[in-house]
């Protein structure tokens, strides 16, 4: 199935009648995923957004429950209301990061009800990249910039560049495509030849190798330039660490959870002031190890999807892809057990 590029606004309007459609919209000189409306200008192609689409499923601040203090208090859960949503036009790297977050929030004995609710209400339309940024290296991390296997609907630019080719992959996807009856016609084959400009040679068993490199001298060299800010974690699509805090208004208040960064100094600070990760070396080591080794041990896949956002936005110009190459090439000394 395909529809004309010029009908894009029409497609979004029909979808917007029943769903809240999150599309890549340029506003305030920033391209980000936000609810679509008539006046907004959607930019499907071009580079990926700075802020990842994870805040649609895992919002920056999420109120969990309301409470009242004192002798007869109450606890009342605040559950996200059920609005059907569409994540329209996310790239394969962001789709893969949503898969990783599914594994974290929906498996291993406990299900995060907030995330599960938003995930069930969301239908995801992935869009194959037509242009790779200079810091994109998703192919070296085993992804295909033209195809997102786990998306509900896969959308690509057609070979002749006139229309968008749709391919529904799940019943949610079929249901969505059925709603676009009038606008789509059959046929059309997609153009899937975008390549990543940045190719890095990552060792096959990098996660096992890194697991033995905890005391390797590479860490002193690599982490020196870091200034310990939270930029890389807040632009990263697969960072899901959160903090739980509360705000009080008089006798009542609400408990909320919000994004947190393992790079901040008080992330692991204990009550007595002790801190297992006192300096930025331990913190950055923990972040790289989590992305490239710990997550493999626990969930079986690498957590870095190669979207290149942290490489682009790091103030100290640190580069995880350079680290991957250095770590893949480093030989293990005697001190690595």
């Amino acid at each position, binding site marked *: 199935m395909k529809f004309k590029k010029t009908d894009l606004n029409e497609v979004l309007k029909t979808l917007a009648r029943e769903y809240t459609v999150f599309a890549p919209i340029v506003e305030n000189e920033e391209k980000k995923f936000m609810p679509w409306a008539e006046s907004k200008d959607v930019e499907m192609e071009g580079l990926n957004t700075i802020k990842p689409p994870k805040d649609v499923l895992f919002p920056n601040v999420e109120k969990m429950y309301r409470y009242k*203090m004192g002798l007869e208090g109450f606890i009342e*859960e605040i*559950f996200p209301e059920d609005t059907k949503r569409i994540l329209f036009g996310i790239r394969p790297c962001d789709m893969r990061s949503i898969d990783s977050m599914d594994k974290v*929030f929906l498996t291993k*004995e*406990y299900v995060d009800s907030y995330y599960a609710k938003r995930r069930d209400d969301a239908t995801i339309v992935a869009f194959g990249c037509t242009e790779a940024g200079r810091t994109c290296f998703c192919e070296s991390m085993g992804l295909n910039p033209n195809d997102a296997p786990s998306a509900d609907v896969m959308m690509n630019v057609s070979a002749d560049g006139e229309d968008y080719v749709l391919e529904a992959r799940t019943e949610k996807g079929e249901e969505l495509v059925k709603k676009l009856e009038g606008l789509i016609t059959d046929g059309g084959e997609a153009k899937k030849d975008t390549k990543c400009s940045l190719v890095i040679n990552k060792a096959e068993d990098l996660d096992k190798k890194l697991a033995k490199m905890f005391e390797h001298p590479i860490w002193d060299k690599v982490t020196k330039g870091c200034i310990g800010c939270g930029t890389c974690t807040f632009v990263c699509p697969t960072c899901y660490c959160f903090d*739980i805090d509360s705000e009080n208004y008089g006798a009542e208040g609400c408990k909320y959870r919000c994004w947190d960064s393992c790079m901040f100094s008080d992330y692991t600070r*204990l009550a007595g002031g002790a801190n*297992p990760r006192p300096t930025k070396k331990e913190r950055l080591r923990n972040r790289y190890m989590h992305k490239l080794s710990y997550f493999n*041990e626990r969930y079986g896949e690498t957590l870095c999807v190669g979207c290149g956002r942290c490489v682009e936005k790091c103030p100290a110009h640190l580069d995880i892809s350079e680290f991957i190459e250095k770590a893949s090439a480093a030989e293990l000394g005697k001190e690595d057990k």
Partner: protein
Amino acid sequence: MAIDHECSCSKNPLVPTLCKVIDVKQETPDVQTYTIQTVDGKKPFSPLPGQLAMISLLGVGEAMFSITAQGDDYIQSSIKRTGLLTEAFHEMQPGQQIGVRGPYGNHFPIDDFKGKDILFIGGGIGIAPVRSLIRYCLEHREDFGHLDILYGARSMNDICFKEDCLENWPKAPDTNVYITTDVPSEGWDGHVGFVPSYIEEVGFKPENKKVALCGPPIMITLSSASLLKMGFKKEDVITTLELRMKCGIGKCGRCNIGSKFVCLDGPVFSLAELDELPDEK
């Protein structure tokens, strides 16, 4: 294809149930034991020995505490006054409503302990999680061999659960209790000395014996060193870790050591498991 959710709890794991404190017992000048029931007088949950509960004082904060004892309609937790939140806990009066969620964490490996002699070592407030195991072993006394309880506290009036340590446990069948204090205090004729040195002084034999060890980090490192010196194997020494925990369900990424989460895969680890983890403790 959304992943099908398998989940071991019916409701939202992050929202606590409303409970109330029905009794506050002053164990020592800075430790209090709270007896907790749900608002309609039932047990919030029945934890296994060594499991934790996230207890929140609404409006102040929440933190993870071990459940030291349980009855058929209450659970008990002992909290030492160390920070802002625990300070507020110590101002609680019976009837105060709090939020409780859990049980979290793995528990002491009871099946491995069955049929073995057990040495319980507790330091200061570290006796609280160990006590949950001691009470379990005393309730199922026939499943376990000889019990030794070694408990070190700062001074005489810092000894928690005095009636257990000084009256009930010594009377229990085939159980000897060794209590030591760091400094001599008047009215105390028992042993004086640190736990690691007291372990070597008594000289426990490692054959067919498991160790449950819990206390301040320095005591754990020194005690496990002297235990290994006496021939105990690393898999037989079980300890609990204390890290900052926020969600309690292995999602928020806060309490990770390597790829393991202390709140979900721990807090109970054997020394052998701890060696495999990167030493970031």
